[in-house]
């Protein structure tokens, strides 16, 4: 099996392409190097091959590097991206990072800089971002809890996943309590375990923490695994437990009035809860996201992150994490900032 990662180099200057190829062929991981002299050619290659890394120049005729990056960010969210430029402008650098670029590198001018560039690229290709918790890479939260319990530890795990945060209390290897924003006990434990990735820290144990979880960690982990499997197969369950994923999880968030998801035109592509006229709202959601995404690409203003729309009867927020567009209706009593923060949580839950 071929395990060499593929790198795509994009520059309109054939001499530079050859130069970069020579530099990168010396990487210890011996990646497979492909080159493209235009944005269009690069897009065609990205469509045809599973690349690990795209290294692009910015100034090119027709489709420039920023345009390529805007498209790549949306179509290939897992592709690592490096920009090589001769521009040393901070404003420019922040614009490029706003596009989600992993590395912004001024074109190396000395042997030492070339060496550093090679090391950075190698490190970027090694980085595993599929899932896992920072600090114990490639370990699921279940693994981490098992480690704590088997070693009879007393600790508090504080877990952060974007705007979401939670804590799990462990006392002498027993699960004692769990807490998220609005839930405690076993339900909170289940919600936290539904997060696929994030960061965690271990805090000193709290022996005085009131116990709300009375099941053994093994029984609870088993139950959690079953519920997550059900959620993954789009089964809402029997309603006795809070949903952890998908529309049910969003619909039960505090302040939500309706939820609509769409993948494209047609009834078979959208799903809604709490709406009397989902077809019209679905069309508005798609058109609005497409309209402003196109505008953002034209302005080179970075990816469209989120839209909040405030109304006298209800507020609405739109986002598109991946292929599915989300439209969530919120109670009108919420402020604009509250809608924005809560929608960020919706996007995180959806991505989980």
């Amino acid at each position, binding site marked *: 099996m071929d395990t060499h990662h593929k790198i795509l180099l994009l520059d309109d*200057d054939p*001499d*530079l392409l050859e*130069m970069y190829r020579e530099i990168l062929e010396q990487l210890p991981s011996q990646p497979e190097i492909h080159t493209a002299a235009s944005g269009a050619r690069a897009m065609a290659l990205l469509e045809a091959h599973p690349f690990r890394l795209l290294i692009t*120049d*910015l*100034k090119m005729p027709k489709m*420039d*590097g*920023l345009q390529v990056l805007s498209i790549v960010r949306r179509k290939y969210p897992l592709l690592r991206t490096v920009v090589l*430029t*001769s*521009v040393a402008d*901070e404003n*420019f650098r*922040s*614009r490029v*990072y*706003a*596009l*989600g670029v992993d590395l912004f590198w001024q*074109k*190396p*001018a*000395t*042997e030492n800089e070339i060496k550093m560039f090679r090391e950075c690229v190698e490190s970027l290709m090694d980085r595993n971002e599929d899932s896992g918790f920072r600090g114990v890479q490639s370990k699921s939260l279940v693994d981490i809890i098992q480690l704590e319990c088997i070693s009879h530890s007393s600790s508090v795990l504080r877990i952060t996943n974007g705007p979401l945060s939670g804590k799990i209390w462990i006392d002498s290897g027993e699960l004692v309590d769990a807490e998220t924003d609005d839930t405690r006990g076993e339900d909170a434990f289940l919600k936290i375990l539904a997060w696929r990735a994030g960061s965690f820290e271990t805090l000193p144990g709290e022996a005085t923490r009131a116990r709300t979880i009375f099941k053994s960690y093994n029984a609870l982990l088993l139950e959690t695994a079953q519920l997550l499997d059900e959620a993954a197969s789009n089964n809402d369950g029997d309603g006795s437990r809070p949903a952890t994923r998908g529309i049910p999880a969003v619909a039960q968030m505090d302040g939500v009035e309706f939820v609509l998801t769409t993948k494209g035109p047609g009834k078979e592509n959208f799903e809604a809860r709490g709406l009397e*006229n989902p077809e*019209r*709202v679905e*069309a*508005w959601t798609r*058109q*609005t996201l497409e*309209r*402003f995404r196109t*505008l*953002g690409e*034209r*302005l*080179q*203003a*970075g*990816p*469209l*992150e*989120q*839209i*909040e*729309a*405030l*109304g*006298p*009867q*209800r507020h*609405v927020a739109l986002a598109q994490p991946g292929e599915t567009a989300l439209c969530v*209706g919120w109670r009108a009593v919420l402020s*604009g*900032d509250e809608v*924005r923060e809560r929608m960020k949580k919706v996007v995180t839950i959806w991505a989980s």
Partner: protein
Amino acid sequence: MGFLNLFSKPAPAIAGLPSGCFTVDRTGRVVVATIPSSFPATTVQEIGRHVLDTFREAQVAQLPLAELAIHFGSLKITARELRGGAIIFLAPKNPISPTQ
């Protein structure tokens, strides 16, 4: 290391993100603007048209709206409905303290 000269290339030109505000009437005509004149007037009009279309289509979808906030990686557009027209604010985000 003469070959390294190959790396030198003219710096790419990049259009600055606009900062300021403007109002459009119900027909999409820009009434008054504080956007720098270096920013293309056609793009200002285009932004105004998108905002008005979004308000109108929301009304059709029975979602009456009074305010919009559109967040891009480097820019925030805020718009308030104004008797069929709109007042629109454009604010580039500062990388150190991003506009909320």
